[in-house]
């Protein structure tokens, strides 16, 4: 059973704009893929559909074997706990410490304090930020902030990791560092899907590429 399956998925926003027009693809467990395409091609929309931030107008999406169309609103939070997400504008809480930011998903899932502390340390360690628990995000560089966002996304050990422009604001060196981090998560078995503009960055990475254009998959370049 694949981790993610899109089956003729279309999304038309209420404004009448068709962001996706019949997209089908599968992501195997432990696979890593990039989602590219011009601005407005529908990359963010595709990720939002997986998080149930939007509902598809047509077609079916399966995540971890679960048909998302069948999920009721009260089941959505539990679905979201299975997925780690990283956004370009990292969505950190700036009045909280790094620790509190990373611990948030665990707190929500009901972990006790000891487990929580252990997992937060492990997550911060895995992004190379151990020791910064007590800092506020404003006291960190852009790259460090992005890594805090990644730590939060992986702290719950999700099976699926989604990232929308995770390197958008970062210089090339930092971007490479972040991508490297994602590769390492794939190496420990996480399925990773990253939407990005940055063709030059992923060119060298030898990973599968899904190219969106005007809401359709123009090219699905597998790497073997």
């Amino acid at each position: 059973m694949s981790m993610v399956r899109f089956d003729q998925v279309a999304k038309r926003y209420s404004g009448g704009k068709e962001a996706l027009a019949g997209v089908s693809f599968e992501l195997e467990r432990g696979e890593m893929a990039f989602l590219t395409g011009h601005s407005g091609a529908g990359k963010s929309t595709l990720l939002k559909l997986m998080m149930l931030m939007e509902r598809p107008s047509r077609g079916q999406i399966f995540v971890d074997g679960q048909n998302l169309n069948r999920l009721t609103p009260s089941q959505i939070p539990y679905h979201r706990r299975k997925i780690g997400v990283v956004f370009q504008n990292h969505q950190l809480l700036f009045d909280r410490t790094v620790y509190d930011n990373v611990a948030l998903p665990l707190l929500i899932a009901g972990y006790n304090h000891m487990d929580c502390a252990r997992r937060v340390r492990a997550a911060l360690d895995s992004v190379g930020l151990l020791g910064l628990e007590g800092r506020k995000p404003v006291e960190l560089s852009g790259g460090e902030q992005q890594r805090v966002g990644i730590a939060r996304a992986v702290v719950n050990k999700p099976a699926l990791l989604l990232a929308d422009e995770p390197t958008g604001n970062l210089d090339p060196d930092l971007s490479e560092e972040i991508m490297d981090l994602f590769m390492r998560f794939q190496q420990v078995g996480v399925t990773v899907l990253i939407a990005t503009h940055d063709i030059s960055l992923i060119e060298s990475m030898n990973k599968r590429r899904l190219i969106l254009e005007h809401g359709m998959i123009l090219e699905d370049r597998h790497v073997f």
Partner: protein
Amino acid sequence: MSSNRRNDPRAQVGASLAERPAETRSRPESGPGALQQHIGFKDKLVAGFLHHQMVAVETLLQLLAHPASSLMTWLVIAIAVTLPGALWMSVSNVEQLSGSIRESGRITLYLNDTASNEQGRQLAATLERLETIDEVIFISHEQALENFRRTSGMADALDLLPGNPLPVTLVVQPASSLDATSIRSLSERLREYPDVAAAQLDMAWLERLRAWLVLVQRMVWVLGGLLALAILLVVGNTIRLAIAARVDEIRVSKLVGATNAWVRRPFLYTGLWYGLVGGLMAWLMLIVLWLLLKQPAADLASRYGSGFELAALEPAAAMVLLIGSMLLGWAGAWWSVSHHLDEIEP
């Protein structure tokens, strides 16, 4: 320290990854489907309880961390609770006071024209032995005439009459333990006595007071209802602002899997704290009010020859105010949360 890491990020990340706990590294072996964390029902229950506890403490600390703005809301609630509380206190005091006014329940018995002074005296003695009656004042034909002469100012007209038209009169003071309905039924029974022509119950004054009390009590309820609405609106609005200030946090929480109940919880506790602390402050205000009025009220009463003492709000009533204000705080928060929170989606 962080600049170090920046200089050699790859090495750092690699090194730390190598040290990742075994559970993380072993994930690929655990196979498909085993990736999702499963937490037992009991653990969830305990975690839920702990979260309630944590949120309760955190929201209180949060309120105490901004004393100026919290105090405003608390004072508004306290005043809104104190007003009906003070009225309630006054009403129950006046009620108590009215019970202690003896003259108000007097029954005047007019005997038949044919009844003699002697018969009247006998009846008075009989009645005085009844337990429901404290005292009977006997007024003879002659005394009645004399009283009438003095009070009516129609002495000359009376002289024109052939005989004495005024009956023997008995003024009955019911036992102080009797309430208004018992006094009324006593008066009914006295009317049945053979020599009694008419019984007149002098309760008008008391009844007027009772009518006032009913009116004021009704006013307490109306006022209480309006002020309860005010508390709802004040807490609702305060919570609305709190929600607006934390939109980002709510979005992020929902994005990482927070349920609506989880997101709601801190706001509901905040409402509860507003109500509870506001109610406690109101209680304090009512006690201060009582302390301030106690002495003047006793002075006033002593001038009327009464030993009346202003009673404080009974603990049960204070409890009602406290719990009521707590529930109102919670309801205000709930009302606001159900309007504004569920709309915030990531």
